[in-house]
């Protein structure tokens, strides 16, 4: 193969491996263009006037993109922790749901308390709920040898049913309860508990730098969840690469047996990976409640609440090479795809399900192209006799 010969050149190979995720997205978009042509739609119009305009065309579009990127980023940094720790957490959906439920319950139960207390309390509560839900799978894996992929899938289903029950009968608003055909939804959380909007601040910054600003951002729904998520991404990066616990999580992920000989309590760290991973997904659910929806609604099922972010967050993390900082732009990219997909549907009358197809293709391309990353690592190992930053082994403990 010519490509392989070209890749013998180490520098070119390095560039190629770094750019692989981008190549994967472009490949998916090209395939998508063929599909659009088959559906009698103009791909250029669809991508430019639909996807791009819809995601970045106006201030509102950008705000929407960032709002959609927030849960992806939070789930994604959790995924970075668990995959680095050698644990495949497919349970983001369920963890988000229990996080959302916890925030809703706390917000409604203590609706008269001060927002300065309640906003952090709701967010911490959602983190803890997600952590418990993830930790359950962790305990099952570490102490009962239950494959975490399966247990997290089961826990997703259980959480989604539990949400249906709680919202339909326990948390349901008085108004709906007494109505003839009740809609399964809770009361709105007090407005004081809404996450602060950051539009006005952005306008101030624009003004400060003398940029033309006429209350451009103030009208958008952008809330400070994206800022929380970015700060946490930086903290998780520091945690994973600059602390002993983070180091041990990664060590267990790379080689559980060697870690055990080195005296690391492998089981503890397996549980911890899932606790933290679940916690961040739970927080994504909490931020979804406080920042976007302000209540839980069980109509349309769990997917209407999560927007598939539990799965799409995995994509963002993979795309960011399982690095919390890389996950930031990746989450924005996939947030843009999701938001742009709706506009694409309106512009060229192609169902936005196309975006789900494209995201599926991106995952397949990214994990499929890992073979080149690995080949490079292997060669470096055999030449230098030393390992490098490779994908962690996700085989689990024996």
């Amino acid at each position, binding site marked *: 193969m010519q490509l392989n010969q070209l890749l013998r050149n180490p520098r070119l190979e390095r560039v190629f491996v770094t750019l692989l995720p981008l190549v994967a997205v472009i490949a998916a978009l090209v395939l998508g263009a063929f599909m659009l042509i088959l559906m009698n739609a103009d791909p250029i119009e669809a991508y430019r006037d639909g996807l791009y305009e819809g995601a970045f065309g106006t201030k509102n579009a950008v705000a929407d993109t960032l709002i959609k990127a927030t849960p992806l980023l939070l789930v994604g940094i959790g995924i970075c922790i668990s995959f680095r720790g050698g644990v495949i957490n497919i349970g983001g959906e369920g963890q988000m749901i229990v996080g959302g439920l916890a925030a809703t319950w706390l917000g409604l139960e203590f609706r008269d308390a001060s927002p300065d207390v309640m906003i952090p309390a709701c967010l911490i509560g959602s983190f803890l709920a997600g952590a418990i839900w993830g930790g359950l799978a962790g305990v099952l894996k570490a102490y009962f040898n239950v494959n975490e992929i399966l247990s997290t899938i089961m826990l997703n289903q259980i959480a989604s049913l539990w949400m249906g029950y709680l919202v339909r009968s326990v948390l349901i608003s008085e108004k709906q309860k007494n109505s003839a055909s009740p809609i399964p939804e809770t009361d709105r959380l007090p407005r004081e508990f809404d996450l602060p909007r950051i539009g006005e601040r952005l306008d101030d910054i624009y003004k400060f730098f003398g940029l033309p600003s006429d209350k451009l951002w103030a009208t958008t729904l952008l809330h400070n969840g994206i800022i929380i998520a970015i700060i946490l991404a930086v903290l998780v990066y520091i945690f994973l690469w600059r602390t002993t616990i983070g180091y041990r999580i990664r060590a267990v992920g790379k080689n559980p047996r060697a870690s055990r000989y080195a005296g690391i309590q492998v089981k503890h760290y397996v549980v911890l990976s899932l606790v933290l991973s679940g916690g961040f997904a739970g927080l994504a659910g909490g931020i979804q409640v406080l920042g976007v929806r302000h209540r839980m609604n069980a109509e349309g099922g769990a997917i209407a609440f999560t927007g598939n972010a539990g799965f799409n967050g995995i994509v963002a993390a993979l795309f960011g090479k399982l690095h919390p900082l890389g996950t930031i732009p990746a989450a924005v990219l996939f947030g843009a795809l999701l938001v742009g997909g709706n506009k694409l549907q309106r512009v060229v009358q192609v169902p936005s399900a196309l975006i789900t197809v494209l995201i599926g293709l991106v995952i397949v391309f990214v*994990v499929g192209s890992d073979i080149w990353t690995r080949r490079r690592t292997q060669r470096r190992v055999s030449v230098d006799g030393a390992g490098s930053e490779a994908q962690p082994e996700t085989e689990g403990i024996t």
Partner: protein
Amino acid sequence: MIEDLLTASVVASGIRIATPYLFASLGETFGQRSGVLNLGVDGVMLMGAFCSFWAVSEFTPQGSQTWDATALAMGVLVAILVGLLMGLATAFINVTLKAEQGISGIGIYLFGLGMSDLLFQKTFDQVAIINGFPKVGFPNFLTDLPVLGEVLFQHTLLVYMAFALVPVTWFVLNKTTLGLNIRAVGQNPEAADAMGISVTRVRYFTVTLGGVLAALAGATLSIAQHNVFQQNMTAGQGFIAVALVYFGAWRARGVLFGALLFSLVTALQLKAGTVGIDIPDEYLSMTPYVLTIIALVFASQRIDQPAALTKPFDRGE
């Protein structure tokens, strides 16, 4: 109370519900026995469900009020074809490209979820209903038998095919050279390779077979049970099918037991709602999932898992 619940019709409906699980899980059993975990079953099921639905609606003569044999045969054929293609793609990704199997499966799932929805919205303007598989025409003295008649003799052809697949799977895996090769490849690919078995070829075969059976599982839903197609109509059944393989400890018999248990509980839960038992629906719906987790706790204490499961094979050339 129990008499109200455990009626012939509940058992019969349990058997119907078990059918797609059997197809998908037995297919997945082949793949996992050879060392490949395909988590994308749900996506393949959705594609099989849509494509067979489309074929049946396309080939049914205009204005026909009853089922049409050609159309149904085309439906099954198209499902097999789609399963074949998606199975081959899965094998290429997992075997040739050696992708991380837990994640590539999510990609395949999302692809199938989106694609089936996209095609459906593009080809059908409104909700369409087709004439799906009829009940097999057993003689009256069989169908009219008390209890047994309803439980055993009032199903569609696909139900009997799925149950027949259980002994076939057992036989192929345990009594044929092919089965021996599959198990060898899943247990110790290096040794199998040294004996001259092509690990790649065996895994391509099992994963593709798994794709075909998953597509048939989807077709069962759309052209034999509900006779409609809906976005995400499997609602995660493909994931349950994967879990059932673990539940059944990678054996045909175990998978049969798991599928039946799971479906009976589901059927009971549907029935319990109508009998007026005062447990919230959602808690009843949860029981199969909780049971599966509990079963996994016990199943995983045994060490039956194919040793090379989820591990790509590298000849180290």
